[in-house]
């Protein structure tokens, strides 16, 4: 397997409570990996270790290694902004920045100085809005407040905003759980379109969504990885009793 992220002996604690127990997994490149499991099993905690977001919560302790492109992102002299530039995050609820639609997409390019002049910005903003499937709906009001969009449109804007930073990896923390069914479909469709270009890791607690999206599956339970493997194998022929129980709806 061509692993884009490798997790080695990872443990995470909130205060004295252990949230992740000795995690050892690999995330394949340019596929959709779905992390699933019952709520409270550590899915989101694991996801947040990939872009060094876990440390934003007070009293968290992390031990072990997370390697992105072979580089341990928890090493001392790592630039955390560079990690987060490479590893984008689509949050549970969309939170546009307090700016116009245009500025939201341009924000990442501004801070990372990836574009040189106005025309480059303009065409890049348009490009990423198109990729996120939002351009047609907003092309006449790019300067309107981003907060004026519907919540489903806001989530697609957040996708465009994240892609504009030019990440290699997209993390999704239950990215459709706050959305209506139609908007969820939109987002899922975009993620499937994008999987050839980006390594994607999605956390979900709905089994049906996992089956629709996953190429590779990680099943977690009580802070441990119970089973990980290609989607077909895990869904059709789970090796572990606990995975089977979960797939049969027993949790």
């Amino acid at each position, binding site marked *: 397997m061509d692993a884009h992220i490798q997790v080695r002996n990872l443990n995470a604690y909130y205060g004295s409570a252990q949230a992740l127990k000795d995690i050892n997994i690999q995330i394949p490149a340019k596929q959709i990996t779905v992390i699933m499991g019952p709520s409270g099993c550590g899915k989101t905690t694991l996801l947040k270790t990939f872009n060094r977001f876990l440390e934003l919560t007070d009293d968290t302790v992390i031990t072990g290694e997370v390697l992105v492109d072979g580089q341990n992102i928890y090493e001392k002299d790592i630039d955390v902004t*560079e990690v987060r*530039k490479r590893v984008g*995050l689509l*949050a549970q609820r969309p*939170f546009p920045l*307090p700016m116009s639609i245009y500025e939201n997409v341009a*924000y*990442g390019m501004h*801070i990372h100085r990836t574009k040189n002049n106005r025309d480059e910005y303009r065409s890049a903003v348009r490009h990423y809005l198109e990729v996120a499937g939002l351009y047609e709906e907003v092309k006449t009001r790019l300067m309107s407040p981003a*907060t004026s969009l519907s919540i489903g449109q806001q989530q697609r804007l957040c996708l465009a905003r994240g892609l504009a930073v030019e990440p290699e990896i997209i993390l999704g923390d239950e990215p459709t759980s706050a959305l209506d069914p139609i908007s969820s479909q939109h987002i899922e469709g975009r993620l499937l379109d994008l999987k050839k270009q980006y390594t994607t890791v999605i956390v979900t607690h709905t089994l049906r969504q996992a089956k629709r999206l996953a190429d590779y599956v990680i099943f977690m339970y009580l802070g441990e990885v119970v089973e990980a493997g290609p989607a077909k194998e895990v869904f059709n022929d789970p090796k572990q009793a606990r995975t089977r129980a979960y797939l049969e709806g027993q949790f």
Partner: protein
Amino acid sequence: MKKHWHRRHIVEAIVKALMMLSFAIVAGSLGLILWTVISRGLPALTWSMLSQTPKGGFYLGKEGGILNAIIGSLYLAGGGTLIALIFSLPIALYLETYLGDSSWGHYVRLALDVLWGIPSIVYGAFGFIVMLALGLRASLLGGIITLALLELPIMTRAMDEVIRRMPVELEQAALALGSTRLEVAARVVTRQMLPGIVTAILLAFGRGIGDAAAVLFTAGFTDRIPTSLMQPAASLPLAVFFQLGMPYPEVQKRAYASALILTIIVLAISLGSRWIAGRLSKYVWK
């Protein structure tokens, strides 16, 4: 489906009538106040009233204007607001960042709320005692410091509320894009909070410029426009207070003109702050 007048309908009609009566009383009083100030102030509001200081003393002189009070009030409230801002912004940030919802934070907020409620004459008396202890006389500086003390709790608490309403997710969204902490603060947090902070500053300025009791002992009153911080300064509220009680219509005119100017300034501030906040908050999370 004809309407029958049951008890609940009658109760509703009575309560609705009471609400309308209350509204009419308040709106009527406001209208009367404005009418009094405008009808007496407007005829007095000549160019010489605005451009000259009182001639022959503010108690007795029958000529001249209220320029001393206009400038004095702007100096006092402007200086007080500036000092209050210098202190209240760090306090509000400290409250949020380090104290948060801890019991210390709770006590500090309680103290600020108590200070907000203290009558301004108490601030005036306190300022006076401090000045006596320091050997200062009634001066622009004394008035500015006292007004800063009066405005500080108002501004700090208003800013505290603005900072507390700041959604955490917004910071996280910016961090997830690879922003540094400084970029989060300068490009995102500031934009979100600016309308509230501007409103807090103008609210405090409006309170400061309209206050008579705080500057009564501390800034004094004078016919002249102060040229240094150590000279006494006139103010619009005291111009009303001192001159309205005189039996000379020419002196009273100056009081009414002062009242009108003060009302216009306060009105302009509250309308202006709404306008600015509205413009700035177009993109903001509400």
